[in-house]
């Protein structure tokens, strides 16, 4: 814990900035019900009002308070994207580690299977599956997580391959340790830095991906506030010189940039530790 604090204190400006950005977003998400002036779906005024004292950043395409929607959107966007990413990492790393640790035909089977899955564009695949199972949030979470886990599989397999040849893993094998121990105690802790970094990046990808799905009508369904859908719902206004959609898009960029800044620093630190 103290080591973590020390690490945080040694962070460069860019990383601190990133942490600040993520922290603000998280606070907004957590405190949304307390600080939002209006409800998530309450229609409170005319459509696309400019910023004013009653609507800090104006209203959206249905006359809902954009600021409140941004706060609730943070909640939904982060929660859903986090859930998806966590699930995809859960699945991807277990299979990836398994493939790397066991090797042989199991590795071949898993890798080729993932290759086939990856050869089909993710978006199309998601479209197909979602158009079958419907676009409820649980379905969205499971489908995207499983599709995304192919990429996690690749990374965790590659990382675990490097670790599995280390002598401390060999030592554990020679001791007679089982597969689960090897994966859980020998490989996982050492695979954490690249995986954590990838987690940040995939997290960003996930909510951009949800935004893309929303664009095609298969993402998070209205009236749930989610930044991607908010951009989509309001995007038509841009060409009329109304810049409302810039806010949710800005929020997405804000969080993405924040996460990326932290990830950059984290990767830097992690690579430094290896030296």
């Amino acid at each position, binding site marked *: 814990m103290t080591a973590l604090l020390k690490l945080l204190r040694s962070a460069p400006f860019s990383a601190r900035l990133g942490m600040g950005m993520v922290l603000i977003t998280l606070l907004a998400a957590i405190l949304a019900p307390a600080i939002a002036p209006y409800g998530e779906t309450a229609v409170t005024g005319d459509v696309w009002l400019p910023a004013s004292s009653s609507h800090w950043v104006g209203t959206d395409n249905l006359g809902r308070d954009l600021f409140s929607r941004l706060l609730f959107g943070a909640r939904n966007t982060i929660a859903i994207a986090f859930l998806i990413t966590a699930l995809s990492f859960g699945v991807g790393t277990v299979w990836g580690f398994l493939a790397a640790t066991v090797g042989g035909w199991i590795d071949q089977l898993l890798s080729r299977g993932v290759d086939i899955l990856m050869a089909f564009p993710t978006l199309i695949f998601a479209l197909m599956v979602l158009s079958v199972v419907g676009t409820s949030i649980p379905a969205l979470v499971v489908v995207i997580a499983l599709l995304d886990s192919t990429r996690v599989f690749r990374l965790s397999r590659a990382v675990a391959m490097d670790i599995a040849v280390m*002598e401390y*893993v060999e030592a554990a094998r020679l001791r007679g340790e089982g597969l689960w121990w090897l994966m859980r105690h020998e490989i996982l802790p050492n695979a954490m830095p690249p995986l954590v970094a990838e987690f940040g990046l995939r997290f960003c990808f996930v909510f951009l991906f949800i935004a893309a799905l929303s664009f095609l009508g298969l993402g998070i369904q209205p009236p749930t506030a989610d930044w991607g859908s908010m951009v989509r719902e309001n995007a038509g206004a841009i060409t009329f010189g109304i810049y409302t959609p810039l806010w949710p898009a800005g929020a997405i960029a804000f969080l993405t940039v924040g996460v990326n800044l932290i990830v950059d620093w984290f990767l830097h630190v992690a690579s430094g530790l290896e030296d």
Partner: protein
Amino acid sequence: MNNPLLEMKDIVIEGLTGDAWAPIINSLDLTLRKGEVLGLIGESGAGKSTLGLAAMGYARQGCRIASGAIVFDGQELLGAPASQLRLIRGARIAYVAQSAAASFNPAHRLIRQYAEGPVQHGLMSAAEAEENAVTTYRQLLLPDPENIGYRFPHQVSGGQLQRAMMAMAMSCRPDIIIFDEPTTALDVTTQIEVLAAIREITRRFDTAAIYITHDLAVVAQLADRIMVLRNGDLVEENDAGEILAHPREPYTRDLLAVRSFRKRESDAALKKEVILKVEGLTASYTGENNVLEDIDVSVHRGRTVALVGESGSGKSTLARVITGLLPAVNGRVVFNGDVLPAALKHRKREDLRRLQMIYQMPDTALNPRQKIRKIIGRPLKFYFNASRRQQEARILELLEQVELPADYIDRYPTELSGGEKQRICIARALVAKPDLIICDEVTSALDQLVAEGILKLLLNLQRQLQVSYLFITHDLATVKAIADEIVVMLAGRIVEKGPKKEILTPPHHAYTHRLLACVPEMDPNWLDRLLEKRPAA
């Protein structure tokens, strides 16, 4: 003599640890005259490479030359603009790195990399430079000098590559060459060729050199003057002969005395039961070419068998076969009277416990994310199902046995030095109460003084616990120190084996002889004598 070619005064170099700058080199002075070879010696962390690079006005990432003066041929290098430094680097001061394999750009042919310096410095045309390269290759006795330059680095052997790098360093005919441990990564037999090449360069072109090494015996062959460094401080500086003959400081004396100890012969006299018997072992990675051919080795209880050979001789493969990582094609391994199943997964936990292993690189042999408590405690739990309290008691006992403080129990491996890590590895092996420990080059990654400590520890433990060692090494000094019996391997076969005394006393097998002859001795004239005896290659 004339003015010094290079004069470094009051140099302070700092390194970044965490977010603070800490000194690596404390106020050192260094002078180098034309044609002089200066040896910089010290253990890792002494700051010798950092000092050597500073002579070029260069500091690695995370280092900075904080203060002092570096005057080369009348020019101040410290604080000089990059363009000025660029004119000097490569052209007037050249650098030879420890690992030629890593320091050659894998994407370009050797001769292109040779020519790059002179052409970029505007000294000659590409054609001239290539012609020049061939001449230099010939002078450094590289085979096929006309064509070797047109190979890629990975197509050339380690010793040849190291010589090619020296040739490259010579390409601009520099005034100074900095050799940074140029032979450390090489086998003893190859080391000789490289040393000969350095001797050739410094003598023929009257080039000044800074020779950085941790091996006093090696530097003794080349240097006119030696500086002994320790933790960024100068310990002692004197003429080479003087240092060897009359070391003033205790530290220097320790360095000189390294590995002069011998295992007591009395132990070796007693015949004991056979713990491990390897019979007619043949092994292969691909199923076609055998890496091991018909190996027979026996290890007795409480005794040490040293397995000697150059890299690629199959010693480590033998260890893998014995441990079950690589199932043998033919032959069998008898351990404590039972034939062990060939594959690891078929072996009983009890057999695994009684056969432990220690690795060459303690860095990679310890999981950096586990505390010592877990590293040593896990086998206790795994083999003996020890409770938390039993584990703690036993770990503390072991830490004492391997001469480490008790509070290390809650440290991570990264917080330990190399030697300390190796002691943890030994503790981890011992905790299983093994009958046999396979030691795979356990000292070769360590500084000599540290290595000596490890060897002494291993010997003590053997006396106390009657554990047997199968000791794999390429270093004959180590063999001399620790072995009861010696097995010499070459290209997957056993060349010669027997009690230590027998093997080390002439007449030797030809290969054993060559190995022994190549071990540097603490004698400034050893290299000259050796080269005189050898026909020119």
